[in-house]
């Protein structure tokens, strides 16, 4: 692995980790689409900042972009508050407007500088290694790594210091307000974090991948844990793993790194969706199947118990014909009788079923509320 390859992967991992942290709270607040809005509209901030400081590398750009990110959030919320537009439509109105103003400004006034649209949408991770951070001739590594590393540290520090406030304001904003924790301030603090992270990541990975990194890993982590701390850690881990796998996929396919990383995030999410131990789709199917069999055995026990000692017992509880009485599929009936016998719920003698003590307990437990 060359130095450049290592640089790119480190930037990708740090970026993924930085995005996953505010992304976790976006997902929990059901504001995933807000990251899409912010990631596009901050283009306007970058362009305005560029006109003012006439540099594409000044950290001032981050401030302008973050300001436009906040403006986006405020405009969406204002539109929503009018009661005339729903949130999703408000997002769909605001960010294309701000983004397209940015596009017009670039095409009209900045046509010959380093601010092209492809880079905005997909980033230029492949070249990130060439943009070095140098002090007095000392090479301190790629600049992207420093930018994203700083943002990552900032995000980690903020979440550690304000963990309790973020959790409370996300779970129960009304209680947060009544206790004096100013959920509005926490909200805009979080939105600033999203904006700053997005601007930083923008340069490296572009606006599409920013959304993928902010939403995909937390959405996957949400399926894996019931603990907010673990969800944060898992989001970071899933983002980082997807970033590295994406890099090598791009290398192997000789394709866009940003595209491959976003694809990997999608694949990671799908994998978790399918195979998550408790909530995954496979686990659900298996659980439903097991519950169905369990339930059928209980029904059988209740049926046998209800008819034991009655005149029609020899008819009702006979293995042959049980399928007709219960109106079950013949094969299914055979399977259930077999399972119930093996689990010691019923016993069979002379083709007639009797319920065991064990089965009686099970039947009685099922019939009380």
């Amino acid at each position: 692995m060359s130095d450049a390859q290592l640089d790119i992967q480190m930037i990708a991992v740090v970026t993924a980790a930085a995005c996953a942290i505010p992304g976790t709270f976006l997902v929990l607040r059901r504001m995933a689409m807000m990251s899409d809005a912010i990631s596009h509209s901050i283009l306007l901030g970058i362009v305005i900042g560029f006109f003012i400081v006439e540099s594409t590398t000044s950290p001032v750009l981050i401030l302008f972009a973050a300001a436009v990110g906040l403006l986006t959030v405020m405009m969406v919320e204002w539109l929503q508050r009018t009661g005339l537009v729903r949130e999703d439509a408000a997002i769909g109105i605001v960010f294309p407007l701000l983004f397209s103003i940015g596009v017009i400004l670039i095409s009209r006034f900045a046509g010959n500088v380093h601010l092209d649209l492809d880079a905005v949408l997909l980033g230029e991770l492949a070249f990130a290694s060439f943009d070095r951070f140098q002090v007095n001739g000392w090479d301190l590594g790629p600049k992207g790594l420093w930018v994203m590393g700083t943002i990552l540290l900032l995000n980690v520090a903020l979440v550690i210091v304000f963990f309790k406030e973020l959790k409370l304001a996300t779970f129960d904003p009304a209680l947060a307000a009544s206790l004096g924790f100013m959920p509005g301030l926490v909200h805009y603090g979080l939105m600033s974090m999203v904006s700053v992270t997005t601007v930083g990541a923008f340069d490296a990975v572009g606006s599409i991948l920013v959304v993928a990194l902010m939403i995909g890993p937390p959405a996957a982590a949400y399926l894996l844990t019931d603990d907010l701390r673990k969800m944060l850690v898992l989001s970071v881990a899933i983002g980082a793993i997807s970033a590295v796998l994406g890099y090598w996929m791009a290398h192997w396919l000789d394709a866009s790194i940003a595209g491959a990383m976003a694809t990997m995030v999608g694949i990671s999410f799908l994998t978790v969706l399918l195979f998550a131990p408790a909530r995954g789709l496979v686990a659900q199917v298996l659980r439903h199947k097991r519950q169905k069999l369990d339930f059928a055995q209980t029904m059988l026990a209740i049926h046998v118990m209800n008819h034991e000692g009655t005149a029609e017992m020899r008819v009702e509880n006979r293995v042959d014909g049980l399928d007709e009485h219960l109106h079950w599929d013949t094969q299914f009936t055979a399977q259930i009788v077999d399972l119930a016998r093996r689990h010691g719920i019923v016993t069979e003698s002379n083709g007639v079923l009797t319920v065991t003590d064990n089965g009686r307990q099970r039947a009685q437990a099922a019939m009380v509320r």
Partner: protein
Amino acid sequence: MTDQQFAIDVADMTAVYHEQPVLWDVDLQVPAGVLMAIVGPNGAGKTTLIKCILGLIKPVAGQVLVQGKPYKDRRDRVAYVPQRGSVDWDFPTNVLDVVEMGRYGALGWWKRPGKRERDAAMHALEKVGMAEFAHRQISQLSGGQQQRVFLARALAQDADIYLMDEPFQGVDAVTERAIIDLLRELRAAGKTVVAVHHDLQTVPEYFDWVLLMNIRKIASGPVDEVFTEENLRLTYGGVVAFMQAPNGSTAAAVDTESVA
């Protein structure tokens, strides 16, 4: 009588929500140590009133005093139980953690909850009979259990005044009984409890103080004085059916569907 003697003193309060006036010039004095029901039809502004007292909605006119002071100076003396449906029960956390949130106000910014907060939360859970659920994921709770967790969270705040928005909503009879016992215990300890309540029949049995409202105050005071047929009719618009309860007190049932 000075203001200090009232747990809550609302004066001339008008509140607007989404540009719609929902409370007109409400005056309300809640004496300390009562167990008060807020009753009124849907859309009467009951939740808005509670949110105004808590400073969650800023009234357009009038003022609220809690123990004679603005709410923000009395935050630590007031516990709030929001409607159960106001939060996302799929949030990744457990019962103990939610109850611990009741201690956050006393902790203040930045400080992390520790053993003291955990012990207070466990103690509150024991009081509502949910101790064995401490480490249960909150998404696995039934409606009544959710309500009890919220109640435990308010108990953990150890306040003087408890404001509860529909604490009996969606709970079964056993849980309702357990909750009302707890509220009476709070009253016996000198606390003031205010609860939005929907079942008019149980008002005289559960509460000693009542506020009847319908975007304005109809009446407030001791249940046996103001919980009258006349006031209920003014509150619900004449569709209240009365019946004589076995204990001789007047009970009322309301057909809320036709009111809405």
